[in-house]
């Protein structure tokens, strides 16, 4: 088990731990991108709040900004999103370990009954 500790992963978790930010990501994925203004039209928070959330997502590289007129346009960063999904997949890894323990316990009971 490597200890390649990165504050990034902690920040990544807190960035996606917020329901509004998850809705923003869903929206950006569905629309292929958006601005603070376009997002605020679909979400129950102010444009200013959206801008702050976008800054959080930007800080952990979950979104990329590009200039579009007077506003920044954001899109989801695929690689960083994949990393977030990978962290979700670590749940599966935990089940692998649990199932191995289940297997060991059951097989040892079976052996003791056979013996």
């Amino acid at each position, binding site marked *: 088990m*490597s200890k*390649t500790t990165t504050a990034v*992963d*902690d920040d990544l978790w807190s960035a996606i731990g917020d329901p509004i930010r998850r809705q923003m990501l869903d929206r950006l994925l569905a629309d292929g991108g958006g601005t603070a203004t376009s997002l605020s039209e679909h979400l129950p928070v102010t444009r200013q709040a959206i801008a702050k959330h976008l800054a959080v997502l930007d800080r952990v590289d979950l979104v990329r900004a590009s200039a579009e007129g007077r506003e920044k346009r954001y899109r989801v960063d695929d690689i960083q999103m994949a990393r977030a999904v990978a962290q979700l997949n670590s749940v599966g890894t935990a089940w692998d370990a649990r199932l191995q*323990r*289940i297997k060991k*316990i*059951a097989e040892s009971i079976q052996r003791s009954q056979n013996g």
Partner: protein
Amino acid sequence: MEFGTIEREIYVDASPEIVFEVVSSPGHLEQWWPDEAHYEPVPGRTGNIVFGQPGTDRTVVPLTVIDTQPPRTFSFRWTQPLDETAVVGNSLLVTFDLRPSGSGTLLKMTESGFREMGWDAALLEQQYNEHSSGWDFYLLRIAPYVARLTSSAVTAEP
């Protein structure tokens, strides 16, 4: 993108009756998952599982038994808020399906509900993993698997 369900299958060289006991009885559960398990394996009954040793910062998580058909299937919901009934949308559903195979059992586990519960559930689960592995909580928030899993991340979950 859909990553709502985790599915695993494993062959166990023991009879379905034994495997069923191991996946469903509280006493056995404590050997492969939480530190303590308090529930009756009866459909509709709610109990809880506890992570952490006595005297430490413990986490108590509700668990509701959904279905039990020995030695074929055992399912439960967990992670619902303490004061709420477990339903779709507020909890994760774990199902064990057992099938005789040769001299042993094919054990299939599915855990679903992530899509409905969102990322919070994943974070929660990750915390529990940390507890159950006995690792330090904060150390474990690191995702040590990322490098290995990233390659399969996009296609891993059906």
